[in-house]
């Protein structure tokens, strides 16, 4: 017979336990959700940082190019102005020198002018090429900064993998290595190099670097498919990516471009980061002459000299024609725009309203730990950066800080050869300083 104590029958302890279990489960779920959200949040932070860094780096590159174009534009204009002043002086010095002086003067002026023009055309051609490369370089920089800031957490090969890969020491063989050798191996593993063993250096590098290090070091983000930036103008939209496994397996070797962009192979890995960039293809640079009236003045000085010179009557008209041909900007039918500067036309659509767009996507494979399936999925961030004029007056065209007409008159009157540096000092280079900003991000 089983007797039940009346006290035990009224025993109430432990009734809270089921509720406690339920609460613990809820708390555990909440913690897991928080951790999951935290992990997902970290991915979002990484992609956001990467997109911002890429967009800002691209804008900074563009700003640097704009400054370069402005300075080159100043130089070209200074060069052309001094060339033409010298051509005028060449003519003036000789035109009164007997009945043939004007011919000699014109020959010298013409050669001076043609040589200056040829040099400026070559400078302009270089600028045109840079105008094509600017956006390509900005895209490359955007890739570099976006990848570097994408929080790639790839593990590098383990010490055991290193020993096996570099020195062929595997399994129990490790027990036979002397302490001194082991210390040396570990030191090599730590610093990633062995300066005393040139034959192994590349292998050591391979087994001490992550694939991502290699990817960045060799700028593999800048190679994909059949597109190569050095083959011409870069396309407006480009995508590059890198993938890796959590356990560090499938390390890319020097001959294995397994994570490079062709066919989006990087998406076959447990983790990947993808950067997509969209922007203009080039800065269209135009050649123009902002100083027509000043060259017109130079031309007038020549014509004045012709009037005073002892020349062959009506042949003055021919000299006038030649002068117009060389120096005429708006004169008669011989209009000619001097290659005196670069114009980016129009400036606003090329800077303020023309940002670089950067998308960064991070993927992390789901992790099922039995009790919980961590669902990371794909996180995406976007940012756009631009180079812009804060004052609204910035440009790449030359801006004079003083009265150039005085400079021209002074040099012509002096008869001395004008120096490009003296002319160059008259330009306000602050005109070419463009600011950079992230104009939008999400």
């Amino acid at each position: 017979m089983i007797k039940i104590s009346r006290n035990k029958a009224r025993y109430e302890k432990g009734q809270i336990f089921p509720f406690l279990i339920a609460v613990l489960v809820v708390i555990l779920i909440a913690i897991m959700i928080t951790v999951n959200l935290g992990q997902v949040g970290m991915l979002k932070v990484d992609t956001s940082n990467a997109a911002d860094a890429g967009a800002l780096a691209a804008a900074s590159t563009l700003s640097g190019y704009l400054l370069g174009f402005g300075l080159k534009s100043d130089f070209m204009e200074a060069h052309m102005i001094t060339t033409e002043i010298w051509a005028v002086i060449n003519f003036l010095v000789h035109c009164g020198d007997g009945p043939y002086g004007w011919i000699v003067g014109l020959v010298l002026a013409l050669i001076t002018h043609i040589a200056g023009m040829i040099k400026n055309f070559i400078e302009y051609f270089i600028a045109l090429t840079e105008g094509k490369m600017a956006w390509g370089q900005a895209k490359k920089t955007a890739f570099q900064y976006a990848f570097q800031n994408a929080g790639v957490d790839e593990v590098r090969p383990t010490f055991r993998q290193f020993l096996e890969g570099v020195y062929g020491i595997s399994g129990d063989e490790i027990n036979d290595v002397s302490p001194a050798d082991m210390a040396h191996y570990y030191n090599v593993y730590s610093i990633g190099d062995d300066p005393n063993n040139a034959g192994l250096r590349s292998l050591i590098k391979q087994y001490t670097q992550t694939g991502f290090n290699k990817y960045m070091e060799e700028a593999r983000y800048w190679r994909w498919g059949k597109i190569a930036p050095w083959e011409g103008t870069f396309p407006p939209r480009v995508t590059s990516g890198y993938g890796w496994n959590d356990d560090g397996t499938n390390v890319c070797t020097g001959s294995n471009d397994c994570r490079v962009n062709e066919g989006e192979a990087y998406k076959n890995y447990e983790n990947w980061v993808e950067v997509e960039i969209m922007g203009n293809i080039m800065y269209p640079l135009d050649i123009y002459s902002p100083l027509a009236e000043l060259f017109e003045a130079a031309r007038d000085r020549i014509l004045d000299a012709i009037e005073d010179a002892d020349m062959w009557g009506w042949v003055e008209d021919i000299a006038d024609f030649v002068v117009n041909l060389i120096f005429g900007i708006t004169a008669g039918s011989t209009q000619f725009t001097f290659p005196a500067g670069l114009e980016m036309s129009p400036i606003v659509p090329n800077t303020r309203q023309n940002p670089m767009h950067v998308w960064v996507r991070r993927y992390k494979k789901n992790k099922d730990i039995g009790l919980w399936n961590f669902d990371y999925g794909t996180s995406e961030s976007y940012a756009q950066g631009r180079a812009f004029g804060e004052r609204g007056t910035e440009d790449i065209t030359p801006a004079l800080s003083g009265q150039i007409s005085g400079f021209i008159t002074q040099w012509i009157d002096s008869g001395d050869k004008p120096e490009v540096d003296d002319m160059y000092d008259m330009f306000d280079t602050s005109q070419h300083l463009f600011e950079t900003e992230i104009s939008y991000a999400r």
Partner: protein
Amino acid sequence: MLRQKNILIAAVVLALITVFCLPGFAQANVDFEVPVPEGSSLVEDRDIAMGGRQIKIKVYTAPVSSAAILGYYRSFFSQQGFQKILDKPEPELNKHLLRFKQGDAVVAIGVLNKPGINKIVIARYLQKAGQLPPEKSGVSLTELFSMVPKKEAAGKDLAAVPRPDNSIRAAFTERGDHTQLLYIAPMNAVSVVDFYKKEMEAQGWELKREVLGSEGLGAYGIAKEDAFTPENPILERPGHKQVIQEMSILEFSADFGDAEITILPDPSQAPAGSVIKIEYDEK
């Protein structure tokens, strides 16, 4: 046999007419003397090429008033059957321009009336129907180079910068530390470039930069095609591209100075010949 002989004679006659008569006939249009006032002195007599044609120029000083000279020529050419196509005073320049035409032949007369001197410039040239007058046709590099006097100009050569053998110094200017020289050389441009590269190096110069006209023309062509570069009338002028194509600019530097030597082929001396401009700055 007789027929072949006749054909041969006809061919010879035709060839003789072609060789001797046709150019003679063309020249005959402007190959007439224009009278000048009594006591006039000839100060200039030369042929020049301008706007694609030969122009015969004579310049006189005259002891009579410009009004008398103008009146005389108006009357003279009218009697000779010439048509007056220009009668233009230019008081600001103290000159008066007359132009008469008969067929394709044109006589242009400029009377310059400056204090103490009266000059008569008489130019004769051909101007076919629809052809622009010389001053509107412009001057090509060939024509301009051909007009440079082929006699040694005053001045001196640079000790630091050699000149090619048999070249003519056409211009010399020295101002402060800067010297400019113009030479006309019988060698072709390529030989002159080689000469300067070799000789300058031997004299302690270092070639800092060589700019080729062909590079500039290439850049111009691409700029014109890719960008919005306007046509350059100097580069687009017939014959100019060939000259600029073979042009070289050599920039030398040394402890004692800087030199820029521009070398162009001289088409007026074709097939060889070149024009050399030297800019030298003494340090």
